């Protein structure tokens, strides 16, 4: 599958590939762009970057705390730093460095969590990041972003590169089909992107769950004539409260879908806003439950927990049957 952009068929790629390609384009024009890696240039798809810009890549070795501390030092001296490491290690082992050296000191490091969520599938819980939204939402002064498709990824990287403040961006490894841009073809942080509009309910996804949310909405229309709005809430923090209030004002059900623990992520962020602003829409958080995560590939884990076309559609049917 591909997208037609400016009459050119663009093949879909993994967001990670788009990240590395975008960074390469930026580095071409800006010698202050620096990538810092922890033996992760291969998994970050940064091999070609390293070959083309050997003076703009810093290898730390497998030492994530040091990766983030060094990145903060580089950023404080004027470098536009992308610190790239698997999301699971970056946001857990180096959390104190993220909190103090990056966020608290306001050193403008762009932390790139690669192979995020359950992208590593059968490698197991050590390699999953189902906590990163939760922990980083509680850290002041960092924008938390999970782009859904190649377009959002490219925009997010380009815009983050020119910001003077800290960011955390997470990507998966899976090829991500382009989402429709007919309603909203723009991208800016903290503005949720409306992928599809419908009157019966709203499904809010983030990152790699937006696509199955959109598929579920298409299925609901085809099979049940149910019209769903789908939102890509790429920025988890700060959250687009305005958009949330707008969809909540319809009184229709809201479902959130994330590749993250059901604790502390997108869903609870939305729930917190809704309750504190007296919106009482039927509401469901879909994500990875608080249990020993089922083993399997990313797709199998998604299917197991219902983060799939049919799983999300079933949840929508159930919530629509609830009395409210």
């Amino acid at each position, binding site marked *: 599958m591909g997208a037609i952009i400016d009459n050119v068929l663009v093949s879909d790629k993994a967001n990670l590939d788009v990240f590395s390609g975008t960074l390469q384009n930026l580095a071409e024009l800006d010698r202050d762009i620096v990538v810092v890696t922890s033996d992760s240039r291969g998994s970050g798809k940064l091999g070609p970057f390293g070959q083309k810009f050997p003076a703009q890549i810093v290898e730390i070795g497998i030492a994530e*705390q040091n990766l983030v501390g060094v990145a*903060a030092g*580089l950023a404080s001296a*004027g470098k536009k730093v992308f610190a790239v490491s698997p999301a699971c290690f970056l946001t857990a082992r180096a959390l104190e460095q993220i909190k103090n050296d990056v966020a608290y*000191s306001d050193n403008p490091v762009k932390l790139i969590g690669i192979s995020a969520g359950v992208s590593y599938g059968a490698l197991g819980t050590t390699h999953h990041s189902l906590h990163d939204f939760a922990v980083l939402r509680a850290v002041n002064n960092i924008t938390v972003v999970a782009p859904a498709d190649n377009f959002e990824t490219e925009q997010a990287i380009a815009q983050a590169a020119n910001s003077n403040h800290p960011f955390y961006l997470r990507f998966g490894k899976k090829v991500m089909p382009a989402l429709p841009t007919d309603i909203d073809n723009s991208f800016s942080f903290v503005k949720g992107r409306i992928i599809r509009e419908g009157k019966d309910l709203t499904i809010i996804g983030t990152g790699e769950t937006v696509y199955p949310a959109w598929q579920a909405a298409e299925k609901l229309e085809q099979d049940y004539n149910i019209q769903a709005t789908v939102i890509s809430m790429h920025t988890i923090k700060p959250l687009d409260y305005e958009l949330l209030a707008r969809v909540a004002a319809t009184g229709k059900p809201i479902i959130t879908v994330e590749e993250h623990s059901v604790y502390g992520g997108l869903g609870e962020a939305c729930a917190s806003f809704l309750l504190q602003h007296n919106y009482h829409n039927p509401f469901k958080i879909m994500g990875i439950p608080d249990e020993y995560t089922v083993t399997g590939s990313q797709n199998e884990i998604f299917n197991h927990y219902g983060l799939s076309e049919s799983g999300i559609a079933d949840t929508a049917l159930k919530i629509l049957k609830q009395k409210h």
Partner: protein
Amino acid sequence: MTPKELALKSIGYRKNILKYIYGANAGHTGGSLSCIDILNVLYNHTLNVGPDNFKSPDRDRYIQSKGHCVEALFVVLADKGFFPESDLETLCRYKSHYIGHPTRKVNGVEQNTGALGHGLPISVGTALAAKMDNKAYRVFTLLGDGELPEGSNWEAALTAAHYKLDNLTAIIDHNKLQITGRTSDVCNTDPIDLKFESFGWAVRHVDGHDFKMLQETLDELPFTDSKPSLIIAHTVKGKGISYMEDELKWHHGVPNKQQYAQAIEELDNAVATL
């Protein structure tokens, strides 16, 4: 500045450290007194940094890893004119930026520190940026001996040597005491010199209260081309106040009125001995 002039300055710094800790009824007294002579020589002899060039990308950087001894840093920064000394009357008060650890809200502070084991990795990144940009500025960081077991220090020590950062100097305030007791009893890190040498650093020992020796040692940086430098400064916790020296309880002990008066009297008397 001559060693004698520096010695006189340190007496004034010690009086101010005690004055503001006494006023705030909080602070890390012992460690601030052990590292103050090092900061004195850095800011009055070695570093090309002051209020006039603090925004310059070419300034030398000082990053205090042992952030809890912020009172020593504040007193020196005030003396250098980064802010009015009277600001320190708000130390640890509600809404003051002069809190118990360094933050960039205070003019002259390079990085927010306080959690241990953070100064060296940030300093490595800053020194690496200088190398990438062919800039001549140097980076200095002060570590406590008690924070050496933090693994991030050793990760950063490897990186500093790997990238041949001879523009980086780490100084260990080796007062040999930490909050629980002797550093050698809590977690023995000896021999510090051999460990860093094996990591690829050039190492020197100094008496951290000998101004001439500190000046001469800092003048010889880098000790070896293409190697980061480590200065192990042998110091005394609570240095300069008879009843505080090498006494564990002064890690963050605050003097009472009578103790404060005695400390000031001892420091006033010390002027005559110079």
